[in-house]
Every structure is written in C-alpha cells, then in structure tokens.
C-alpha cells in the first residue's frame, strides 16, 4: 500500500527524479516530511505567539511586545530562551514519573496530527485513506497527557483543571465528530487530500452549521476561551500546569499552540478548501487560511468571557449535540435526494436551515442557574 501520493508538486517533486520502484523513496519521503512538519509547526508557533500577542495587544488598546527585534518579532525567541534556563521543579510529593512523562504524552500526539494535513495536493506525510478518523483519534490522546500532569503534580488546582479537561474533551468530542461526518458525507472520502479535492466550493458554504459546531467544539477541545476552564487563570491559577516550570512548561505551552495550529489546519482542510485557491501558489493559500482561522480563534479569546464548567457541559450535550445530529441528518438527506442540485440552492437552503435552528435553540436553550442546595 502506498501511503503517499506521488503527484508532482513543490514538496515531493524529488520523487519524479527517482526510479519509481526504488525502496529508499519511502524513507526519503518520510524523513523529508518529518523535517518539514517539525519546521513548519515550530516556525508557525513562533509566528502565532508573536501574532497573537501583538493582535491581542491591539484588541486591548495597548501595543503588545515591541522591544525585542523589529516589531517585537524576536519576542517568542526571547521567551523561549528565558523559559529554557528556568529551574525544572518537580513537586516533592508528586508522582515523579507521571509528572515527567505528561508533557511528552501531550506533545507528541499534537504533533502527529500534522502527518495527514495536506500542505498542497499530495504533499503530506501519509495520505491515509482514513485521515480524518486518524485526526480525531490522535487528538484525543493529548488529554491523557494533560490528566497525567494534573495527577502527577499532587496539587489540587492541577487536579481540578485536569478533571475539567477530561470531562470537557469527552463531551466535545461527540459534536465535533458528528460535524466532521457531514463533511465526509459530501466529500465521500475520509482522506484529507480527497476532501480538499472534493471542495470545488468550500464546504463552509455547504456546511455552515457544521462549521460553527466544529469551530466551537474544537475551541473547547483545545481549551481556548471561552472554554479555557482547565487553565482558568482567575479560578484555578494555571490549572493542570500550575506545578510545571522550565522546559516542561514550555512543552505544554507548545502543546497549546500546536493544537491551535492543528485545529486551524483541519478547519482549513475540511471547510475552507485547504490549499485550493486562485492565482497564489497552493502552499500560500493554505498558510493564509490557517492564519485567518487562527486570527478568528484569538479574536474570540480576547472578546468573550469564560463559561462555567456545568454550563460548558450543558452547552455540549443540550445544544451542540442535537444541532450536530440534525445537521448530519439534513446533510444525509441532501446527499441522497439532491445529488445533482445546483450548489447555490443547497447553500441558501443550508444557510436558512442554520439560521432557523440557531434562532430556535437560542429560544429554548438557556445557560445559567446552577446553585446546589447544601
């Protein structure tokens, strides 16, 4: 089975020059893409951290970091150096091994998601025919690392943060997966590359509700505001990484941004047409879309307050889950009944259905309440 698609492009044109049955081609491809992914992820995270800090600075009527390098561009580097020379502390009564292993367990799966993200047509580490299923499976492994951190720290804030994470991840996984299935139904494939190829119009237009559900659910899964309960600074200090310092803390920091990057990349791939776009080269389109989604995520972060843990659960189970099921049902009907319909009819139909559903839900779904008699 060939897990890579050797069509000619910027990333794997080397395959053209090699004899097609050369066994080293597989390893060359593997090695090259591991390097590309690592470089891409780390460089993008550096950029994201700078972009987010400057951007949030603007949102908050201040300047943001502007001292280190031009426009503060070297701020992430300075941060990284600072954090690397910090003392590495392990709590005296913590579980040493679990505490040590947690950042690794959290970081590796976050990085592994990129194995199936197509940067360009066929330019991906492994064109799995179950790509999106792999993403769903791998991305939930990070939670284990976070729970290990909470448990191994022997700190009550950490433990509360970790417990919140597990509950949150389990709840939001379901609407997220259901919203992905809508996309898969239309594309007719689970492979990330095939999904992009199927998007002659971006699926955000065909699946507006699915996009919203995925966006909200993914924000919750990667613990961004308004769902950043596990590290709710004003409540439980730093949540699961309260007891972490130095490189291990840096790894958790990386996990957070890698996951944001991953979600941006997946939203780009599933809903925004991936690398497709006119004029500019595909890789650039991919990057532009990823940055745009990231901008949306931190725009939300700097605008909206945080919701409470029980409201978070209620929102997932009572609001997102039914909406996702309805969306899946409607998409199924559309795929079966109207396969030849004009896309614009479906777009307007879906937008109308989304509007009606959201208005309906906002009428009879209310957050709030929550006092327990003791």
């Amino acid at each position, binding site marked *: 089975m060939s897990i890579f698609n050797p069509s000619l492009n910027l990333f794997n044109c080397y395959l053209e020059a090699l004899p097609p049955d050369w066994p080293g081609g597989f390893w060359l491809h593997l090695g090259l893409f591991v390097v590309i992914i690592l470089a891409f992820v780390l460089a993008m995270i550096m950029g994201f951290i700078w972009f987010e800090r400057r951007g949030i600075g603007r949102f908050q009527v201040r300047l943001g970091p502007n001292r280190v390098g031009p426009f503060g561009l070297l701020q992430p580097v300075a941060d990284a150096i600072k954090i690397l020379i910090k003392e590495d502390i392990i709590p005296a009564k913590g579980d040493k091994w679990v505490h040590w292993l947690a950042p690794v367990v959290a970081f590796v799966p976050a990085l592994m998601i990129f194995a199936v993200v197509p940067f360009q047509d066929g330019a991906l580490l492994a064109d799995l025919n179950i790509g999106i299923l792999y993403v769903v499976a791998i991305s939930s492994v990070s939670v284990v690392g976070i729970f290990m951190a909470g448990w191994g720290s022997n700190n009550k804030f950490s433990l509360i943060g970790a417990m919140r994470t597990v509950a949150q991840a389990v709840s939001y996984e379901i609407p997220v997966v259901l919203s992905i299935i809508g996309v898969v139904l239309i594309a007719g494939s689970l492979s990330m590359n095939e999904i992009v190829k199927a998007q002659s119009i971006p699926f955000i237009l065909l699946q507006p509700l699915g996009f919203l559900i995925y966006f909200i659910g993914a924000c919750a899964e990667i613990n961004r*505001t308004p769902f950043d309960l596990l590290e709710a600074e004003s409540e439980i200090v730093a949540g699961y990484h309260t007891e972490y310092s130095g490189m291990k803390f840096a790894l958790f920091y990386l996990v957070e941004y890698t996951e944001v990057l991953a979600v941006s990349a997946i939203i780009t791939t599933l809903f925004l047409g991936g690398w497709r776009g006119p004029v500019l080269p595909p890789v650039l389109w991919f990057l532009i879309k990823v940055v745009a989604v990231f901008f949306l995520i931190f725009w939300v972060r700097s605008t909206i307050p945080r919701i*409470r843990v029980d409201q978070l659960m209620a929102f997932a189970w009572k609001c997102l889950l039914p909406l996702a099921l309805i969306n899946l049902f409607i998409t199924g009907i559309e795929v079966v009944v109207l396969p030849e319909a004009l896309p614009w009819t479906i777009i307007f139909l879906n937008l109308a259905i989304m509007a009606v559903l959201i208005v309906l839900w906002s009428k009879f779904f209310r957050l709030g309440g929550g006092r*327990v008699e*003791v």
Partner: protein
Amino acid sequence: MAIKTEPFVINIGPQHPSTHGVFRMRLTLDGEVIIDVEPILGYLHRGIEKLAEGRTYTQNIPFTDRLDYLASMSNNLAYVLAVEKLAGTPVPERAEYLRVIMAELQRIASHLVGVGAFLNDCGAFMTPFLYMFREREKILDLFEMVCGQRLTYNYMRVGGISQDVPEEFLPALKKFVLQMPGFIDEYDQLLAENEILLARAKGVGILPRELAINTSASGPVLRASGVKWDIRKADPYSIYDRFEFDIPTGNFGDCYDRYRVRIQEMRQSVRILKQAMEQLPQGEVRSDVPHLIRPPVGEAYGHIEAPKGELGFYLVSDNSIAPYRFHIRAPTLINLTALRDMMIGWKVADAIIIFGSIDICLAEVDR
C-alpha cells in the same frame, strides 16, 4: 451504587491571581460545589488605626490614602470631614465644590477598576479591564494635575484642600466629562448583553435584601439588593444636597446587578460632575487653620458614600494634637460579612466572580 465522595479543601489565596490582593478563602468543596467558605484576613494588616494615634491630625491624612488605594480622594474626604466635625472648622465654598469634583472623579475611577476586575474574573481575558484603565488613566492625569500624585493624593486638608486647581484643570475636566458617557456606552456595547456574561452573573451570588441590611452592607452591594440607601442622599455631607442625581438600584442582588449598579453610578457621577463644574465659585480654597489642630474634647463620626460603600472615620479627641482614638469603618470589610451566605452552593468559578462583584480592596479590609 452510590459513589462515596469526600469533601476537600482548597485555599484560594493569599497568593492567587484573582483575590484582589492578599485575601484568603478556605473553600471546602464537594466536587466543584462549595459547601463551606472561611475567609481569612489580616495578611496586609499594618496597624494604621494605632499608628494614627501617634500622629497629628494633619499627618494622618496620608495614612487614609493608604486604606483603599483605589479611592484615596474619598478616604481623604471622609477623614477631613470627621476632623472638621470634631474641631468645627469652616470650609470655603470653592473647596467644597472641588472636594465633590475629586470625590466623584474618584468614584468613577474606582468603579472602573471594580467593574474591569469583575469582568476579568468572569474570564474576559483582560480586554474590558484594559479598556477601563484607559479612562482611569485620564482621571489619574487629572489628579496628577491638581496634586502631583497618581495614586496616593494627600490632597484634602482640614478646612479645605491643599491647593487650588491649576488653570488647565477645568478645560481638561470638561473634556473628560463630555467624553465619559460615550465610553460608558462603549462598555455596555461590549459586554452588558453578552450571553455568556448573563449566564455567568445573572442570578449568581444573590444577596437578599434582608441579609444585606442585617449585615450592614453598604454601597453598590447594598443598592444592588434593592435598598435605596446612599449617604449622599440619606445624610448629605459636604454640598451634595445641591446636586441632582439618582440612586441606581438593582432588583435581585446578584452579581449582574452589582455590576450594573456600578455602571449606572458612573453615569450619575458624570451628572454630578457636570453640575459641580457649572456651579464652581471663585474664592479661597482653604480656611485659616492652625498647623497643629487641637480639637476640643469630644468625639465625632464622619462618613461618606465612598465608591465601595459607607466609609466612616470615628475620632475621639482629648484636646491634644493627635487623635485619642482613630477608628475606620471600612466598607469592604463589612461587605465581606455576607460572603459565606452568597457563596454556599455555588461552584468554584462562581466563588471568584461573587468575590469580584463585592469589589474589595485588601488594604482597606486589613488596614
């Protein structure tokens, strides 16, 4: 099968991002639900009441700055009012007006911090906080203009104020007063109707009317519970009886009401500022007061409606140059009385916003 759970205790504070200082809450939790709260105070105790007994009446004014450092002008005012009551000192008309202007500016500044910190506690990642600090900065600039300080002003004196305002103050104040309503509207547009904020704050941490009165809560905390009690109206001091303003009250006494009451009070303060600016007379700003004030033997209680509640100074004089007894009725300490009743049954996340909605200043609580 019933799962057996055990309550466990967490300490919120004294070092914690959202205890507004060094307050400590010992929360007993059953899961995430609070079943007991024990506030622990005193980490910032500096013995100001005792220290004040060894200093002259004028020397004590800087101490009052260091009580609620977010409302130093109001503290100054409450203290000099008490001394003036004790010594029977007259205050020139212009000084009275300037005092009112400073106190109302201070109320806006303090409420800006209070509301901003509350929204921050709700998890709004610093944005509203920094928006509100933008306007607070303007007020601090005004204060810097009149007394050279930005936090501890030491501006009021027994029998007036330390110095007249500079020429550029009134135009700057006028500009601020014209801008401020627009800024308050901006805050409302940003978050007042936000679904998440409503879900978080509405109905949370209710302080019933009776309990509010019984615990002698005051200020926005009391008014949010629906009690129309404002010392500026109930027992007018200085020249507050000359101004027209309303007392905003809430209906339910929840966190959201306390937040709304503060926003409304800012609007009312702007109203008072407008009137005071128009009526401001010319003249002296300080009556002839000896350097060492020796009030006759007796006692006096001066109280004002400080931004955070009823701030009172109780002074006993033995005809010496220093007060014999100096007692502070700190509003936020007394507002904390009902903390436990407000928090029981809510979740950890709510504890933070309930605490934030009381808007305390630890320097005043522990003094």
